[in-house]
Every structure is written in structure tokens, then in C-alpha cells.
């Protein structure tokens, strides 16, 4: 396709995670589109695209910064809406860290299913396609537009293979819900697997924990989809240590790290917390020497390229581009 033809990739970045957008753009060999995002004095968000998007294939990258979830979400919706009114051919929302992902069921009387609301809102704003990372399968079905749910797993597998002898490792799921994710990694690495059962009286509060499996003299690798206040991970790490693990580290897709997460981590027995850069980490890497970051942007960039060219994305489910 010649450069003059319309329907090129237009990469638009929200304000929540410009570093990730830059990395994706660099990988794709394009520039991030010029835009202006700002807040009025009454904090209403205003957004303008600085270049034509008519008939272009628009990809909007917006993560959600910890603490500013609604700000990021509203900005994303406004960005989608602006591109829609500016006659973009297709609008793909690239949301590495899907907001409200945990509020996906009516677990109490009259509890809102906010994840479904967000899905509906994105479609109402005009998104034609969603690209995200490690979203629960149940939430993918909230959408009536195509959703490409990418996995951090290939990146994790590579990280483990590059840094440890796989036969020394045991993959541990910190809760029953994550058992499938952990067994999948254990199968790929051909290692042992363990599980921690926990009682959770309230969200973000961790109860008693019981280890199922053997971690003695092994490197225990906890695997989860998000680390928020890190209470679960730290307690799980303590349980693993008590059960004779040589060292404990955690591999987590979304490092939300809200509240006192950094302090909790610093004072824990956890040797390292490895996260991807789906969530902007700000100064947390400096504040927490245990925090290590895997760059997910090659996977996202490749997904964007393949989506744009109409190629299959399934390759990315098992391979992490370098």
C-alpha cells in the first residue's frame, strides 16, 4: 500500500500511559498522532485530534492510571467519540488494563456489573474493536464487537526461561480462580504446580491461607493477573516461605499497586514482583527495588499491525515477539 493511500494506522495516545504508546509507535515505525487533551477549569475533559483521521484505521491506546481510573475512561470515551465524528474508518480501543474488570458479576444484591457497563459504554462511544491484555473470558462476552484478548503468558514464559532453571521452579497460583493460568504456565515449562487456597471475607482483605502442593527447596513463582494492594501476594509468599520455598517471586500482568502496595512489598519476603507495563508505574520502580518490568509493547504493536493488515492474531497467544 502506498503511503498516500488512506486507511493507514493512526495511533492515538491518551494521557494515562504515553510511554507505552511511544514504545508501540516506535515498534510500528510510525509517529503517535498529534492530539490535544486537556481539562477545563471545572475538570471536564476536552479532546481534539490534530490531524485528519478520515478513512483511517485508528488505534487508541489508553491504559488506566491507578487512582485516576474514571479520568482515563472518560478520556478514552471522548477520544473514541471524537474519532467517530471525524469519520475514522475503524476505531480500535487498545486498553491494556481494562477498567472495572473485577466488577463483572452481581455477587451481592443490586451490585452493579460495572464491567458490562464499561463494555457497553465503549461500544456506544463508537469503538469497533477492542484489544486488551489478560481480560477474563467472561468479560469478553460483554462485548458485541470483536475483542482480541492478548496474554502476557508468552512474555512470562520467556522471562522464567531466561532467568531460572525451569526444573528448580514451581508455579503457584495464589487462589483457586487462578489455577488455570498457573497450570498452563507449569505445563509449558514442564514444572510442578501448587495452589494456595484462601478465604476472602471482603475485597482487598485476605483471610487464612492453606498451601496445596510441595514447594520445598524450590523457587516458588506466584502467578496472577493483577497485583493491587499486594496483600494476597505478600501473605501467599509468607505461606510459601513457611513451607520451605527457597525463594519466592511473583509474576503479575497488571501492576496496579494502589494504596500501600509499595511499602507492603518492600517489607515482604517476596524476592521480586515482575509486572508488565500495561499500567503506568510512575516512580514506583524507583521506590520499590523488588519491582521488575516486562515490556508488553511488542505484543501490543504486533497485535495492532496484524489487526490492521487483517492477519491472524492467534500467533501472539503462544509467542511473544522480541
Amino acid at each position, binding site marked *: 500500500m502506498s503511503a498516500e493511500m488512506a486507511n493507514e494506522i493512526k495511533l492515538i495516545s491518551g494521557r494515562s500511559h504515553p510511554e507505552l504508546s511511544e514504545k508501540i509507535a516506535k515498534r510500528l515505525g510510525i509517529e503517535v498522532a498529534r492530539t*490535544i487533551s*486537556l481539562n*477545563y*477549569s*471545572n*475538570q*471536564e*475533559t*476536552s*479532546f*481534539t*485530534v*490534530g490531524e*485528519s*483521521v478520515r478513512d483511517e484505521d485508528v488505534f487508541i491506546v489508553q491504559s*488506566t*492510571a*491507578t*487512582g*485516576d*481510573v*474514571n*479520568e482515563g*475512561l*472518560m*478520556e478514552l*470515551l*471522548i*477520544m473514541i*467519540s*471524537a*474519532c467517530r*465524528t*471525524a469519520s475514522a474508518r475503524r476505531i480500535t480501543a487498545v486498553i491494556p488494563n481494562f*477498567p*472495572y474488570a*473485577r*466488577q463483572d458479576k*452481581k455477587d*451481592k*444484591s*443490586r*451490585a*452493579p*456489573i*460495572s464491567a*458490562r*457497563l464499561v463494555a*457497553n*459504554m465503549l*461500544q*456506544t*462511544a463508537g469503538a469497533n474493536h477492542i484489544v486488551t491484555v489478560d481480560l477474563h473470558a467472561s468479560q469478553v462476552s460483554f462485548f458485541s464487537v470483536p475483542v482480541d484478548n492478548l496474554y502476557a503468558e508468552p512474555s512470562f514464559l520467556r522471562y522464567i526461561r531466561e532467568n531460572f532453571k525451569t526444573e528448580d521452579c514451581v508455579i503457584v497460583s495464589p487462589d483457586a480462580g487462578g489455577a488455570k493460568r498457573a497450570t498452563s504456565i507449569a505445563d509449558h515449562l514442564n514444572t510442578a504446580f501448587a495452589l494456595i487456597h484462601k478465604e476472602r471475607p471482603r*475485597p*482487598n482483605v485476605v483471610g487464612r491461607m492453606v498451601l496445596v502442593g510441595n514447594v520445598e527447596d524450590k523457587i516458588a513463582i506466584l502467578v496472577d493477573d493483577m497485583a*493491587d*494492594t499486594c496483600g494476597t501476594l505478600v501473605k501467599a509468599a509468607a505461606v510459601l516461605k513457611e513451607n520451605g520455598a527457597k525463594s519466592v517471586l511473583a509474576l503479575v500482568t497488571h501492576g*496496579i499497586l*494502589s*494504596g500501600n502496595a509499595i511499602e507492603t512489598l518492600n517489607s515482604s519476603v517476596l524476592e521480586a514482583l515482575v509486572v508488565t507495563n500495561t499500567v503506568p508505574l510512575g516512580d514506583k520502580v524507583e521506590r520499590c527495588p523488588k519491582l521488575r518490568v516486562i515490556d508488553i509493547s511488542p505484543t501490543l504493536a504486533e497485535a495492532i499491525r496484524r489487526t490492521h493488515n487483517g492477519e491472524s492474531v492467534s500467533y501472539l497467544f503462544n509467542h511473544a515477539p522480541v
Partner: protein
Amino acid sequence: MRGTLVFAGSSCPELTDKICQNLGMARADAELTQFSNGETSVRILTSVREKDVFVVQSGSDKINDTIMELLIMISACKGGSANKITAVLPYFPYSRQSKKKSHRGAITARLLANLMDVAGVKHVVTVDLHASQMQGFFKCPVDNLHAEPLIARWIRRNVPEWQEAVVVSKNAGGTKRVTSLADALKLNFGMVTTDKRRGPSMAPSVIGYSLDGLERHPVLDAISNQVRNTTLSDSENGNPATNNGRSQDSRAAADVQGSPRLRANGTHSRNPANHKTPPSRSQTILSQSSVIDELDEEAEADELEYNDRRAHEVTHGRLVQGHVVPDDFPSSAASVADTSVPEEDPMAMSHASSFFGPQPHALGGSGDAGESSDEEDDLRNPKVEHMITLVGDVKDRTVLIVDDMIDKPGSWIAAAETVVKRGRAKKVYCIATHGVFGGDCLEQMQACDCIDTIVVTNSHPISEDKARNASKLVVLDLSFLLAEAIRRNHYGESMSPLFQHVMD
């Protein structure tokens, strides 16, 4: 009321409590918190099954959180099998972004309407939408209530000699709203309009265009030049424009009044004895407000086509960095571009449209209220000097400057300074429905000597800290209006009486 629940969003529990008091019921119980990662959590603590649910939410400093909370509350009530969910939004967020102001900008108000629809709202009650066309954004019915009767009643009861007051619009876009209030109170009407001053040869006089649509008097051009000359030469004595302008104006007025068009319009009951204020003027402006709207938007084109002409009672002033300056103030626009203040003002950076086009309203075609309070932005730009024009006689009178919301102080202060320093008004009331008061707006208006009183309703919450230090601030209570709207909605009664003025 049986079968009704009123929930309060976190932005306006006080207003909701007042509404509930009016309805003789208690606010329904809901727990509104945030998770530690910033996601909004809503728990509806009472059964909503088959209930008529009203969710009251206004604006706040964290407007996007407020909106998400509203949407999640609506969604939760819908999921809890509520019969009908009504969103009561005394202040409609994003209502100023109701059209594409710049290329590829978003129509966020429409987006918000769609989002509320998808969340499950079945009816919307709001107050004084910035642009009434926004009602069309919704698939569900919208009741756009008016605070005007409330404000009019307050004026009749609290403004001394209100019968002699003049209602002034601080920009051309808001004239419709202002004429409506002037009509209700049977008051005279004036207007302040600002123009970018691009060079010394240009004499912007927007109102002039509306008056010379049919015939042109080349003589008057000479007069207007004369006015300009006298104004400039007399600039030492502080306030020359009105004095010298007046003597010249009377000639102009005689001429203009001779035109048959104006005589046709010139029927007005109030102030027949006042020679200096031929009521025909106000009436003319009033009846042509829509023309003015369009002219404002196409001002640039018109300047090329029409001759400049000064109408009677037109007072000009110079506006530098948002303040009216004496005529001998060193001009930045006329001489070298920006010698006076090279420093970049952050206020000027606060609007997207100013980045992409010199005419932010070039695309806005509605000619309705849309523009008002949008044109604030380059008032503070030190590089641009504005010509501010006051139309109408406000000398020794009380002036009521009216718009739909007070967010940024710039245009209010500029208008107040113009009517006081140039028009020699006696007192200035700044009146608006929504007291948004972004940033240090309230402090700045409080500090402005030309503003005597600021009147808003409680549609938008005003923090106690701010209100405590603002002795000029008067807050009118909307809760009765909203409660009545809720009651009438629930019982299926007509809303029309709420729009009528009650004389007392």
C-alpha cells in the same frame, strides 16, 4: 411518595436532602466509595424492585468520577429491577461541549447522553441546559427546567429599584436567555460584546451591523471616525469615551431614529420620559437578538462587507488581559505585536480550539446559547487586545449581568468593568443559574470592585471554604423546583406550571 426512591450521588447530598424534605421522604440508602485503585464502587442498600427511582447528581471537582458514579448507580438500579430510572441533573456535565467546536473535536454532551441511555436511564430532569438543542441528544424524554422564575422573583424582592435596572448580556451568544429575563421583568436590555482588535483602522461595532442592514449612511462613518478621534485625543481625563461619545451619539441617534425600520420596532412601554434612553433601542436589539447571534459568528466576513457605524448608546472600551484600560494605555495590538506583556498566560492555553483555528466558532452554526462562556479563552491572551463594546444606556442604573453559568471569571469581570467604568452603572449583579466557579473564579470575582453581588443557584455544589470567604455570593435554592419536578413526574402531572413566572 409511595413507590419512589431518591438516591443522592456523592456530589450533592445536601441538595438531595432538601429535595427529599420538600417531598416529605428520606433519601434512599446507598454506599458510594472508591476501591483503592480508584474504581468507583456503588452499593444500593435498599430494594429498588419495581420502584420509581430518581438519582440526583450534579457536577463536582472530579467531574469524571461523578459521571461514572451516576452511570454505575443507574446501572445498579437497572440491574436491581427498578421500574423506571430518572436521572436528575441540576447541572448537566459537559453541556458546553454540545457541538463540534474545532475540527475533529468530540461532541461530549451527546456522548454523555448516549452513555446514560446505555446505562439504563428512562427520563432526564435537568435545569437550564447550556444549549436547549441538547434535549435532542437523548432517546428518552428530557425535562429542561428553568431557574428563571426563581431568579426573577429574587430580583423583584431583593434588588432595590429593580424596575430601573438594565439586564445585560455579557456576550452575543447569550442574548436569548437574557432577553427572556428582561421580558419577564419588563426591563431594558443591553449587551456587552468583545472583539479582537486587529489593527488601528478597524473599528469593531457588532451592533452596528444589525442596525444598518437596510440602508447605509456614509455620513455616519464620518461621525464614527470623529468619535474615535475625540476619544483618542481626550484620553487624559480618564473617562472620555462616554462623554464625548454621547454628544456625537445624539446626532447619530436622531439620524437612526428617522429610519422607518426603527420606528416600526419602537414601541416600548417603560421609561417614556427618559430622553437619553429611547426605549426603542432596547427593543430593537431585543427583537434582533437572533440576527446578532449570527452576526457574531460571521463577524469577520461582515466586516469586509459592511461599513462601520455607531449606533446610539454604543460605548467602546479597550480590553487588555481581561481588564478595561484607559484609552491612553499603550497598545500592544496596534503598534508591535507583543511588546507590553511577553509572558505566556496559562489561561490562554486552556482551550483546544485556540490551537487549531483562529475562529473557534467557525463551525458552530446553531446561533444559540452555545457560544456564551466559550469565548473566555483569549481574553487573557496578552498578545490580543480586545475592543469591548457596550450597547445600551446603563448610566446610574443597576445592571444585572446574566448568563447560564459562571465558570471562569474573565468575561464577567470584563463586562462588569465595562458597565461601571465606561457605562457608569451604579451597581452590578452577576446572575447565573450554575455557579461552577472553576479554579479561583469566585475569589477573583469577589475581589473585583465593579461587581457588587453574585447570584447563583445551588445546582452545582459550592464548597463551604469558597462560599465562606465570598461575601458577595447569594445562592438561591433550587430544591423546591426539582422536588416539584420529581413529584409531577411520578404522578404523571404536567410540568408546564414550573416554567411560568409567579407574580407576587
